[in-house]
């Protein structure tokens, strides 16, 4: 629904808004490689959706905290400047459950989000016409 401002949202709608579909991921706080935790496959599906696990892998994941998940967590932590531990610490999971855009962070297996800044510095001296290219080595 659309509201002119946040206080116009009916209280019951506010309440269910806190029932974020991803909130259950917070139950995985402290999990790390080698563990088997009920429901962990859903987090793997989340990481696959946003590009941290290859699309080519079958979606019927297990609940094992395996290397696939560990790598996905590390890449996610790197992209969002979190401590790169490969473990599901509270800060990482608090970030995971934040509302977000549905477009994947990683497309076709290449994560440019963290170092996406191009190494070519383009300096435009005018709105149009030739541009001066400089390449930083």
């Amino acid at each position, binding site marked *: 629904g*659309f509201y002119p401002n946040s206080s116009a949202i009916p209280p019951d709608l506010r309440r269910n808004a806190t*029932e974020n579909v991803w909130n259950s991921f917070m139950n995985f706080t402290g999990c790390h490689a080698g563990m088997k935790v009920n429901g962990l496959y859903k987090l793997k599906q989340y990481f696959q959706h946003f590009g941290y696990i290859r699309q080519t892998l079958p979606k019927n994941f297990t609940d094992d905290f395996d290397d696939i998940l560990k790598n996905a967590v590390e890449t996610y932590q790197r992209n969002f400047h979190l401590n790169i531990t490969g473990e599901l610490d509270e800060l990482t999971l608090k970030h995971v459950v*934040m509302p*977000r855009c*549905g477009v994947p*962070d990683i*497309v076709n297996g290449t994560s440019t989000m963290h170092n996406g800044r191009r190494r070519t510095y*383009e300096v435009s001296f005018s*709105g149009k016409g030739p541009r001066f290219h400089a390449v930083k080595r």
Partner: protein
Amino acid sequence: YSFFPGEPRWPERNRDLTYAFDPRNSLTEEVKSVFSRAFVRWAEVIPVTFTRVEVFSISDIRIGFYSGDHGDGEPFDGVMGTLAHAFSPPNGHFHLDGDENWIVSGDVGGDRLLSVTAAVDLESVAVHEIGHLLGLGHSSVQDSIMYPTITTGRRKVDLTSDDVEGVQYLYGPNPNFNGSRSTPPPSTQQRDTGDSGAAGGI
């Protein structure tokens, strides 16, 4: 800033883009004006214009609010979670989750925190998704518009230098862009160009 693979962008011959709303949503003018403001923020920094049209099927950018599975293989998930998604050029699809509590602030202004956390600021999400429609991927710069997550209750609509650098790499600068931008952009302009001209700041 980052780009989609192949760095897709709107071709030179088609930089006067049109956008329309799915008539099935029956959106109010107030809701539509939020998107107008969002388009103006990008049009100020690049030589691309955005014009609202009424014929949904033939516009370059097609905006709609949908719930759950809406036919593009990327179902929405109810309140919170995934808020919206948009596709890279020249696809033009821009979908928002109809189950969210969208704040149509109306009182234009820059970034700030909304009083209730269960709310999502529509203009903040619109500015972000338009970045995708122009060809930008996600950025790890936390304050940038193209950062993938948004804190509930937060309004974040001002382009940062990271966003401007990225989009100007794809399209070049708006010749009228002098490094500063008007805030707030005009809210009633039917033809959303970037040449509102008033000074502002990144």
